[in-house]
């Protein structure tokens, strides 16, 4: 296909966290994005969650910025309430037919005020709250929904016409038809997410019959402050606080009877989280988790598990629950199970079923329409070396649609899929995006403030409580206000035109809008005044809806007075506003990749394919890293052959310069402008850094006779021997968790269980008579890897569980190995005399992470892995911009996960590399060089490493703090810390804040008189 045929646009199907991440990465890298979502609003499952593990962050708080960014991005078109009908064409040039269902509301007119839903007389259970709450026939899925457009549920609407009567914006269109859209795109990313397992199928647990048996996602809503019980844990049968709550794991997972043999990967952790949060919300709740294996395999998950056991008082019982019955009188639930070989019965007040993940219900339709393959379990088929590619070229996949997975891995894959989707059409980059052009900015220097105030009724949302005309008249009396008006909806399209007109007519040089929250609406109004030639920062808002009329709806007089105060405060600040410039910085459009393993090579190659220069630095003499030592993958793919192929591609790529046997001396600079020098003296200039330095296998010197007896080896050493075809033994013992999940190294190494299965299967295949024993604590073959556990079991591998506290003992007697282990299940000691003892030893970070971290100004975990900016939503970024992490350097993971993550790093890096210059924030810290004495107290307060003590330019003897505005995010932390008062936050100067405070207090005096009138 000729390059000119390629379409510089991507379609993303599914608007959950993965779809949003992929869309944002692509739209920020020069591609047009169409985000298609089957529901009326984006957000997906994450929007339903109360908190997320292991950080216990509020899910909505961390995802809302992404929601808003996706909704507002001018290169992302949201096509919600829609499904894919036809896909024609090939990679680089697809034509997609999309069917969009009618909202029966005009999205352009709907302001999301919600008056319609308040008056709609038809109630129905709310899907977002999993049926625990009610909604109306006209509704939004959840209060923070994006787009915030109400839609009519055609199933429920009785057509009474009340919503149209209520809607002051005249947005309701009962005759709106379904639409068919034809969209041309170069590639497609599938992120449709997952469905929960239908718990009704496990009839023995009584879901749907017993009221106090709920699913884990229902429990999320029960826990949520926006849920039915406002965050108090209550049980549905009678609203009592459940003193004893049982969590039953693996409901619809690891269970061939229900057809799902795989492990759902996330339930262990979400159950611990739900148990912990439930207890935190309502202290009388005492949770017990019934599980088979505790699969806390992710980064720092085991620490979370340990704290749950030791600090938070959550009980863990290793047993599969046979059945649940109800005491019909108390509605309590009786659980029957076997523990330590004895049948037991225990009564609980409430039961939570940790339901597994299923492919989305429309998986087969998607597969048929888009022509890609599903695997045996109904998920999208991907390859061991191509984790984000479907079987159809040009169509990519991310998130739970390719396998059950948690949010961090989902987000990483989303970015990874964005990298792949972008590289197919990199020749068409920047062809379909629009860049907004604004008129030349008018100078306001030296002018007196001429303030225009626009007061919004928001239909009846404000006007129904606050006397808007009174507030408007009051605004006119304030100093420097030369114009004021009221609008039915100040955010409506026609109001924007009016604001622009009035700016011209009255020569306004400041604008104040009194309406809703700046968090959602400030960018809109800033855009409007820019269109009229004013600097965006000459704008101020007074929040008289969310923080006034909505909370004081029964006190109209007091609310009106408060609105006046808020307007007076905004006007006071507005008087002192000054134009701020978003500085631009040049970008060096080339990359430095540190580490030449699979992660590093993948990253280098992918960046090169996108058309940018890459410098790949490897400290060893040749490329390849740890992957060369794997020899076997459970899938049967050959890792060594893959490494060789990658190596060849990398070394022959013209955009890549490889430095082997090279060590980094110094990395200096900041996003867009880094300078790196190597030990050899070579200097490299580049715009971004990817840290892919890998990890290493722990050598357990001195443990279990390792290093003393030749028959004791690590897992990787065994694999090498197997590969070389060394003569086989007749009896093997594997010991798991060597150097993992213990003091000093509390976390799981994620890969060893599956690695052991791979090796054990290999041994049994070569010699079915060989005896293989695996001594373990929990088997953590998550996701589809469960099938290797099963296969090993079927081949006759014996699994013996030992207690965390009682490790196996290994001795050498007469040249023979003797392994003693206390079998946790039978309580008996077992003696084994294997020929070989294999230690599944953990993954450790590279020691040079410690020298690179301070150079790059990035943090490390206690164990020495790099610590990303946010464990959940920024899995490959650092707080320091322009630096990314991938592969084992971030933590233990499988090869496919490393590949996905390095692709993610590429997508994130491309958001920088694709630009010739970066725009910095307007709201930044500035330093007064005369006042600064270079004490450096401010330096550690900056999370973004934007401050540095340097020698003064005028007087090199004088020390001075320099603010790198390219890195500054404008939080103001440093300003508050400066003892000399030398730092200023633009847009939030002391004088501006003081002016607001003064204006607020000024209101106190007359208020005393008015209070009496307000008493009713």
């Amino acid at each position, binding site marked *: 296909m000729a390059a000119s045929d390629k379409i510089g646009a991507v379609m993303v199907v599914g608007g959950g966290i993965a779809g949003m991440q992929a869309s944002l990465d692509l739209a920020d890298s020069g591609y047009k994005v169409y985000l298609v979502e089957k529901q009326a609003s984006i957000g997906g499952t994450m929007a339903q969650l109360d908190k997320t593990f292991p950080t216990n962050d509020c899910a909505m708080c961390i995802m809302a910025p992404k929601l808003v960014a996706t909704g507002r991005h001018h290169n992302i078109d949201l096509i919600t309430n829609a499904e894919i009908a036809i896909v024609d064409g090939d990679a680089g040039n697809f034509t997609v037919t999309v069917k969009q269902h009618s909202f029966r509301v005009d999205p352009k007119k709907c302001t999301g005020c919600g008056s319609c839903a308040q008056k709609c007389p038809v109630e129905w259970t709310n899907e977002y709250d999993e049926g625990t709450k009610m909604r109306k026939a006209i509704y939004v899925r959840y209060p923070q929904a994006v787009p915030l457009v109400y839609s009519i549920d055609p199933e429920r609407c009785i*057509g009474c016409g009340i919503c149209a009567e209520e809607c002051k914006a005249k947005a309701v269109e*009962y005759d709106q038809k379904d639409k068919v859209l034809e969209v041309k795109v170069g590639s497609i990313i599938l992120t449709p997410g997952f469905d929960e397992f239908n718990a009704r199928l496990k009839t023995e647990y009584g879901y749907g019959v017993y009221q106090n048996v709920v699913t884990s996602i229902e429990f999320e809503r029960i826990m949520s402050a926006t849920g039915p019980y406002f965050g108090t844990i209550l049980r549905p049968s009678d*609203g009592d606080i459940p003193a004893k709550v049982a969590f039953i794991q693996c409901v619809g997972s690891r269970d061939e009877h229900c057809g799902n043999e795989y492990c759902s990967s996330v339930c262990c952790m979400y159950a611990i989280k739900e148990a912990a949060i439930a207890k935190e919300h309502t202290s009388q709740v005492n949770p017990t988790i019934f599980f088979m294996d505790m699969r806390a395999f992710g980064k720092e998950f085991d620490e979370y598990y340990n704290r749950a056991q030791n600090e938070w008082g959550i009980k863990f019982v290793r047993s599969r629950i046979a059945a649940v019955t109800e005491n019909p009188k108390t509605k309590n639930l009786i659980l029957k199970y076997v523990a330590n070989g004895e049948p037991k019965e225990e009564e609980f007040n409430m039961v939570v079923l940790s339901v597994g993940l299923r492919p989305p219900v429309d998986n087969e339709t998607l597969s048929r329409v888009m022509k890609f393959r599903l695997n045996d379990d109904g998920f999208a088929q991907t390859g061991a070396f191509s984790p984000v590619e479907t079987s159809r070229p040009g169509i990519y996949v991310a998130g739970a649609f390719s396998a059950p997975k948690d949010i961090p891995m989902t987000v990483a894959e989303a970015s990874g899929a964005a990298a792949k989707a972008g590289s197919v059409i990199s020749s068409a980059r920047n062809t379909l995006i629009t860049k907004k052009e604004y008129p030349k900015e008018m100078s306001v220097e030296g002018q007196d403030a001429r303030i225009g105030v626009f007061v919004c009724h928001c239909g009846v949302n404000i006007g129904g409580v606050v006397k808007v005309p009174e507030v408007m008249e009051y605004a006119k009396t304030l100093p420097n206000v030369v114009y004021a008006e009221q609008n039915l909806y100040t955010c409506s399209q026609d109001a924007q035109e009016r604001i622009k007109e009035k700016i011209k007519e009255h020569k306004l040089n400041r604008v104040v809008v009194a309406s809703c929250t700046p968090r959602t609406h400030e960018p809109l109004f800033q855009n409007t005044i820019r269109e009229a030639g004013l600097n965006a920062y000459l704008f101020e808002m007074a929040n008289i809806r969310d923080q006034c009329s909505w909370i004081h709806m029964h006190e109209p007089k007091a609310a009106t007075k408060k609105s006046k105060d808020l307007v007076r405060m905004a006007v006071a600040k507005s008087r002192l506003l000054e134009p701020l410039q978003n500085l631009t910085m040049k970008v060096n459009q080339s990359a430095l990749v540190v580490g030449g393993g699979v992660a590093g090579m993948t990253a280098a190659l992918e960046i090169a394919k996108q058309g940018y220069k890459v410098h790949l630095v490897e400290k060893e003499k040749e490329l390849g890293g740890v992957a060369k030592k794997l020899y076997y993958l459970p899938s049967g793919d050959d890792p060594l052959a893959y490494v060789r192929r990658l190596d060849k591609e990398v070394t022959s790529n013209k955009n890549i310069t490889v430095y082997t046997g090279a060590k980094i001396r110094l990395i200096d600079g900041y996003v867009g402008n880094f300078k790196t020098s190597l030990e050899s003296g070579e200097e490299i200039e580049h715009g971004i850094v990817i840290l892919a330095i890998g990890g290493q296998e722990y050598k357990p010197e001195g443990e279990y006779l390792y290093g003393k007896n030749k028959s004791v080896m690590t897992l990787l050493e065994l694999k090498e021997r197997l590969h070389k075809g060394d003569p086989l033994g007749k009896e093997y013992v594997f010991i798991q968790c060597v150097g993992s999940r213990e003091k000093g190294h509390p976390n799981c190494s994620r890969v060893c269980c599956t690695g052991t299965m791979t090796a054990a299967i290999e041994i049994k295949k070569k010699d079915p008579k060989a005896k293989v024993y695996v001594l373990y604590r929990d088997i953590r073959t998550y996701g589809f890897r469960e099938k290797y556990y099963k296969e090993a079991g079927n081949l006759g591998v014996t699994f013996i569980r030992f207690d965390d506290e009682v490790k196996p003992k290994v001795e050498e007697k007469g040249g023979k190995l003797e392994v003693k282990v206390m079998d946790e299940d039978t309580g008996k000691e077992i003696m084994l005399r294997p020929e070989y003892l294999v230690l599944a030893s953990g993954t450790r970070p590279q020691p040079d992470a410690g020298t690179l971290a301070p150079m790059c100004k990035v943090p490390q975990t206690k164990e020495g892995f790099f610590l990303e900016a946010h464990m959940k939503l920024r899995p490959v970024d650092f707080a320091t911009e322009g630096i990314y992490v991938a592969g084992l350097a971030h933590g233990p993971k499988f090869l496919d996960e490393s590949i996905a993550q390095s692709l993610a790093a590429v997508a994130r890096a491309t958001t920088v590399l694709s630009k010739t210059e970066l725009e910095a924030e307007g709201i930044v810290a500035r330093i007064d060089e005369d006042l600064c004495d270079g004490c450096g107290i401010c330096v550690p307060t900056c999370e973004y490493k934007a401050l540095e003590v340097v020698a003064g330019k005028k007087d090199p003897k004088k020390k001075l703090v320099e603010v790198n505005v390219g890195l500054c995010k404008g939080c103001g932390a440093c300003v508050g810390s400066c003892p000399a008062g030398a730092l200023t936050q633009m847009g939030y100067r002391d004088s501006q804040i003081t002016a607001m405070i003064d204006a607020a207090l000024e209101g106190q005096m007359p208020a005393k008189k008015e209070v009496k009138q307000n008493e009713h």
Partner: protein
Amino acid sequence: MTEVVHHTIEDKKVLDAPSKEWEPKIIGFLCNWCSYAGADLCGVSRYQYPTNIRAVRVMCSTRISAHLVLDLFRAGADGVILGGCHLNDCHYITGNFHTEKRFRLMKELLKDAGIEPDRLRLEWVSASEGEKFSKVVTDFTEQVRKLGPSKVKKDAAVKAKVEAADGASETFRLKALVGKEYNLEKTGNVYGNRLEKSELEKLIDLAAKDEYERSLILVLSKEKPRSVKELGKIMDLPADKVLRHIVVLRQKNMISMDHPEGLTPTYRTIEIGGEQ
């Protein structure tokens, strides 16, 4: 805004006339054009009927809202009779069709409140049916007499229930549904479809039940905080149903969680709460 005007005629002594022997207190609402004229004709023709009824003239029977009727029962009325023109004869064309719909809601709410629905009657009496008027009133008075005095005055539980039914009758949801009912059925909805009568009635009955139960929860939790189980017991409603109502009421800021008793939270009605 909430409908804050809480109209009650409880204090009026008219209905509370002291008498040794109980006599039913009956209020009649008569439409100006037919039933009031019929009553006049009845008098002109000297047809006799018992003295219990006190008639109130209104221009059309549809003026009488469920709230007015329930308010009367709250105040201790023993019977209420509505008189209107025969169907298709309404002076205002469709007024009495709306009356029919409202009447159905009144009956539903009375049933919920534990007041015998037979204490309320709707009759079509034309300007020429003087004799019919006398028969209707005589018959209705006897019917009410047989039912005995209204339980409202003596039974606090019934009083609370009637108050709840009254509250329900004032909700926007029921007013909207019943107000639109006739048109949705006869002329069609915004999509041009006529709704099936029985379907619509089912929907309204469910809504009425919901609103009545929610209103009763608010009435009961006004004087003291109550738990879900306690409310369930008083209202003879499954606790989970009560909890679901409380979820809605909390969302509307009409009730709030109070102190828990052990593991059982209690709820108290918010006096100035309510949806915007």
